[in-house]
C-alpha cells in the first residue's frame, strides 16, 4: 500500500479552533509539510503571534514561543542570535505584523535577521471581532469602519510585501494566495524557498499569504474565496517581490 496523504509530523493531532472556511489550516499544513520535507522539525523553533493564530503552538509539533502582540520578529531575533544553527520562524497576522508590530518586522528585515516570517493577511482583525486592519481595503466594512474604510479619515491599506522588499536585509519576499489548488501549490513552493533562504544564510525571508475570514467578512466560505480573488488580489498582487541570490556579509 502506498500512502498518498498523511498528517505531516510537524502537525500535532489537536483539532484547530479556526472557523469554517478560514485558510489558516491550509497555511499551517503547508508550513508543516515544508519543515517535514526539509527534515528540520527537531531543529526548528516557531514563534506565535497574538491574534487568530495565537494558539498555533497547539498545532505545530515543534518547540514554540508565544510572543506579545507584534513582537514575534524581536522574539525570533533573540532566539536566532542565541541559536544561529537552528531554523526560526514567526507566524503572524496582519494586525500583529502590519500594525502593532510594524517596527519589529521592518527592523528584523532591515537587519537581515536569518529568520522566516509567514504573514497571513486577511485584511481584518479576526480574533478581536472584525475590526479594521492596516490591510483592510478601501470601502471594506468592518466593525470599526462600519461605512467602509475611508481614505480621508482612515488612510490607505499597507502593502507589506512590497514595502519590505525595498530593504537590503530582505533576501526573499513573496506574496501568495491559497484560494485554489494551483495557488496552494505555488504558496508551498514560496514557503519552501523562504525556509531554504534561511538555511542558506542569505538573510530575512517572508511569505505573505492572502487569506479569507468568512466569519468577519460576513460571507460564506465560497463567497469569501471569490471576494479575495475579486478584491484582494488586485490590490495585493501575487508574486515574488524580492529574491537575492548572494549571501550578504
Amino acid at each position, binding site marked *: 500500500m502506498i500512502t498518498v496523504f498523511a498528517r505531516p509530523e510537524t502537525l500535532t493531532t489537536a483539532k484547530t479552533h479556526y472557523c469554517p472556511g478560514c485558510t489558516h489550516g491550509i497555511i499551517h499544513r503547508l508550513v508543516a509539510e515544508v519543515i517535514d520535507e526539509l527534515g528540520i522539525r527537531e531543529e*526548528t523553533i516557531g514563534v506565535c503571534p497574538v491574534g487568530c493564530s495565537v494558539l498555533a503552538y497547539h498545532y505545530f509539533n515543534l518547540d*514554540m514561543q508565544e510572543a*506579545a502582540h507584534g513582537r514575534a520578529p524581536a522574539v525570533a531575533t*533573540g*532566539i*536566532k542570535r542565541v541559536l544561529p544553527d537552528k531554523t526560526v520562524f514567526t507566524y503572524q497576522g496582519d494586525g500583529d505584523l502590519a500594525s502593532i508590530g510594524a517596527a519589529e518586522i*521592518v527592523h528584523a528585515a532591515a537587519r537581515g535577521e536569518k529568520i522566516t516570517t509567514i504573514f497571513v493577511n486577511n485584511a481584518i482583525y479576526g480574533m478581536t471581532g472584525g475590526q479594521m486592519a492596516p490591510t483592510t481595503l478601501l470601502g471594506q466594512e468592518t466593525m470599526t469602519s462600519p461605512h467602509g474604510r475611508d481614505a480621508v479619515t482612515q488612510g490607505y491599506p499597507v502593502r507589506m510585501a512590497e514595502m519590505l522588499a525595498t530593504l537590503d536585509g530582505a533576501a526573499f519576499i513573496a506574496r501568495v494566495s491559497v484560494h485554489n489548488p494551483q495557488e496552494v501549490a505555488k504558496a508551498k513552493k514560496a514557503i519552501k524557498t523562504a525556509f531554504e533562504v534561511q538555511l542558506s544564510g542569505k538573510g530575512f525571508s517572508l511569505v505573505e499569504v492572502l487569506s479569507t475570514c468568512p466569519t468577519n467578512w460576513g460571507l460564506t466560505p465560497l463567497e469569501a474565496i471569490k471576494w479575495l480573488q475579486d478584491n484582494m488580489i488586485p490590490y495585493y498582487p501575487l508574486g515574488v517581490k524580492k529574491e537575492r541570490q548572494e549571501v550578504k556579509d
Partner: protein
Amino acid sequence: MAKVLMKGNEALGEAAVRAGCRYFFGYPITPQNELPHYLARRLPEVGGVFLQAESEVAAINMVYGAAGAGARVMTSSSSPGISLKQEGLTYIAGAELPCVVVNMQRGGPGLGSIQPAQSDYFQAVKGGGHGDYRLIVLAPATIQEIVDLMGKAFDLADQYRNPVMILGDGILGQMMEAVEFPEQEQPAVLPAKPWASTGAKGRRPNLINSLYLNPEELEQHNERLQAKYAKIIANETMAESYLTDGAEIVLVGYGSSARIAKAAVDQARAQGIKAGLFRPITLFPFPKKEIQAACRQARQVLTVEMSMGQLVEDVRYNLEFKVPVHFYGRAGGMVPTTRAVLEQIKRLAEGGDLA
C-alpha cells in the same frame, strides 16, 4: 586581581560578562549608555552578541526570545526606557524566564531629566507591568557592589526562573571607583535549562508561554508564581545594617542615597547622636526581619531618597507602623546633601518636627 578604576556602567558590563552573560539587547538612553558602549566591544571578544534594537520594546522582547532559548541575557535602560520594557517584563515574568534588567534611574515623570533619581522604586518593586508578578530587585550602593552582585543576579534569575532588576541610578552609572573583579570568570557550569526552546530533538516540544485561556489554569499558574515569590521572600533578603545597635535614629536608604545617609550618620555620631543606617540591598524581597532588628531601639526612622517618597511606604509597612517613619528626599535630579540629611537627624534628635 589588582583594582581598576572604572565607571559604574562599564564595571557592570564587565561583571555581567564574567557572570557568563553572552547576550545583550538594548536601546540608547542616558545615563546608561556607557554600558552598551562597553558591551558592543566586549561581547564579540568572548563569542557573545551585542545587538542595538530598534526600541526598548523590541530589546526586551529579544531578551524574552534569548532567555527562552536558554541564554544568560541582559538588557539595560533608564527610567523612560524601563517604562517601555514593562510589557516585555510581565511576559517574561509570566513565562518564567531568567534575565537581568538594569535600570540606571533618572528623573521623571515623563521625559523628566537625565540626572540621577530613585523615583522608579514603586515601578520596580510592585510589578510595573500588568498582572500579579514580581521582579527580584537588587540595589547596589557602590561600583564594587555592582560587580559583586552581578553573578548573584544571574544566579537568582536562573534559580527562580524570574527576571532580576539591578536598580541603580545615574550617579552609580556615571561615577568612577576602584573595583576588583573576582578571579573566577563565570560559574564553571551554567545550570541546565531543559525547559528551553532549543529544537525538540528526541523529546516532546517545549513551549515558552504566558497564555492560559482556562481561568482555573491561570489561577493555578498565579498560585505557583506566588509560592515562588514566597520562597524568594523567605530566602533571598539582603541588607546592610550600619551602627544600628542601640541606634535611636535609624536612617533608611538604598543605592546612592544610602551613601549620603551613611556620611550623615557618621557626622551625627561625631556629635553624640545615636544614629544608624539600614540599607536594603534587595528591594524585593524587602528585608523585613532585618529592618525590624535594625530598628529595635529606634525612636525615629528617617528614609532618605531621591524621590518624593516611595521607599518610605515600604519602610512604614515593614516596621508595622510601630515607629514614626519620616521622609526626606530630593527629586528631579537633585541629590540630598549630607548637611541637609544631618539637619534632619538633628531635628529628630531634638524632638522637633521635620521641615
